């Protein structure tokens, strides 16, 4: 439809075919939608749509397969890296990725994450860190910052009784099986572009069979954090980035 209204010569932006034309269920201002689009555009620009298989987590992005126009498998909560391992081992030439939240990847699925990375599975793990359990209504996540309020830390996360926020990305960077480990965000146009570049690189590296690529995207959760989208992005810059600094953590030599 849009094509018929706009003279192709004037077309400056077109939705990638790797993203379905469906209304997303994400809350206004949430980072998931932008992260999906960057991943879709990265797949599109590499021309690997027909060779890509994704794994969706349990969490807000449980329906990622509904939006990303590639073959995908839904995984049980936390098990996406194991599911991706099963896929990659029978289809070593395909591009395989997981897309996981912080509860999924860094709490219930910690073992699967660490061992997939430690085996150096040739997959891409996209890690959306919003510091909270979005899907289930804003409970504390392993990544919730000290003092940060959630429905299960209503007086703020108390380190002495609730433990420390977990830096999963730094942790997997220690493992010899990871090849490229990096942290980004999608809250400004410049950051969005960087994220896409990182995702593209990570997918390209998969052909080298050098190990796991791990891209963290620090994201906001306006609903879970009980803030407006604008407030939440500010809060993220002021509180999340100092603890989860953006940039490459492990890059190929």
């Amino acid at each position, binding site marked *: 439809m849009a094509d018929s209204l706009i003279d192709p010569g004037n077309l400056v932006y077109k939705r990638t075919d790797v993203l379905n034309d469906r209304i997303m269920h994400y809350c206004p201002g949430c980072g998931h939608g932008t992260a999906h689009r960057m991943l879709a555009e990265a797949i599109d620009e590499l021309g690997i*749509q*027909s*060779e*890509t*298989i994704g*794994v*969706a987590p349990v969490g807000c992005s*449980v*329906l990622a*397969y*509904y939006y*990303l*126009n*590639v*073959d*995908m*498998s*839904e*995984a*049980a909560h936390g*098990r996406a890296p*194991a*599911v*991706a*391992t*099963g*896929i990659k*081992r*029978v*289809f070593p030439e*395909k591009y395989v990725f997981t897309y996981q939240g912080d509860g999924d990847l860094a709490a219930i699925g910690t*073992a*699967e994450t660490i*061992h997939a990375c430690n085996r150096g599975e040739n997959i891409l793990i996209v890690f959306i860190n919003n510091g909270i359990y979005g899907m289930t209504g804003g409970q504390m996540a392993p990544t919730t910052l000290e003092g940060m309020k959630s429905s299960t830390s209503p007086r703020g996360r108390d380190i002495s009784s609730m433990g420390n926020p977990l830096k999963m990305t730094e942790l997997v960077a220690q493992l010899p099986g990871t090849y490229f480990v990096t942290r980004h965000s999608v809250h400004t146009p410049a950051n969005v572009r960087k994220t896409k570049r990182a995702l593209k690189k990570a997918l390209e590296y998969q052909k080298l069979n050098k190990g796991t690529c791990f891209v963290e995207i620090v994201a906001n959760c306006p609903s879970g954090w009980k803030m407006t989208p604008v407030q939440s992005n500010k809060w993220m810059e002021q509180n999340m980035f100092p603890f989860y600094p953006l940039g490459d953590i492990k890059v190929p030599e």
Partner: protein
Amino acid sequence: MKGNEAMAEAAIRAGCDAYFGYPITPQSEIIEYLMHENPAERTGMVVLQAESEIAAINMVYGAAGCGKRAMTTSSSPGISLKQEGLSYIAGAELPCLIVNVVRGGPGLGTIQPSQSDYFQAVKGGGHGDYKLIVLAPATVQESVDYVKLGFDLAFKYRNPVMILSDGIIGQMMEKVELFEQQPLLTEEFEWATVGKKPGRSSVFVTSLQLKPEEQENVNHRLQAKYREIEKHEVRYESFLCDDAEYLLTAFGSCARITKKAQEIAREKGYKVGLLRPQTLYPFPTVAFNKLAGQMKGILTVEMNAGQMVEDVRLAVNGQTRVEHFGRFGGMIPDPEEIFQAFEQKIIGG
């Protein structure tokens, strides 16, 4: 060959594409045999030792979702860990093979043989209304044959299949005839994640339906499939049932011991038949129901505290008395004590 090793060799020959497992007694010989055989070179089969049974079953889910022959094996505590994954596999209607070489429980229990995972295997085990097809081998030969049959049934119905073995059959040495090497699957199934081809919509392997109407429809579809399985896939063996006035019944290794008890009873002049279910789901309900009319009593013999007996009672539906005799916790009954239990509970009772 040893039961466990024979199943491992059968997996290679059945054209299994991928095996994911985690060591646990009494079945570790399966992954050890596979690692030693290195089937990657023989057939291209993938063998991977996972970090846990949870990871292993989810790797199976991933590979099965690609339309490949995927399997895992474990023993009771490990099978408990796989239940969430099994429920997802059943919900997403993926084919795969699971072997449980049962040991005594509950808890860490014992490494000795048992049949106490009957309920878990037959009644679901994980959450939701789902069924596994459950095959119960009594010999090493059957263990081998059921690997091939298991994959065939799994793909025929797109349903997980479990071989419910136990520590006796897994550890026992017997002569076996191995079937010929089957080729690996090359077919690209339309339900499998193989990479979205231009012109077709993307495939998603999932058990999630947000709308209850749709989830009910999924359940209707599953139930219709289970009715088909019940109609076509019941397997059992019966010995000397024509003239029988009494019936002994047992599955797996316990059926072999019970057969000896049947011989003792026949020698003593009791007209005793034996029915051995080979499929525990679907259960030979009709066979039991038909036989029950001629029986003065039925004794189920199990290495558990009384599990299959419930299905026998349901099948018999009050036509005759059904009693249970069991040894459990890793203890194995001997034919003489089974015969005594028969005299006490069925003849004397």
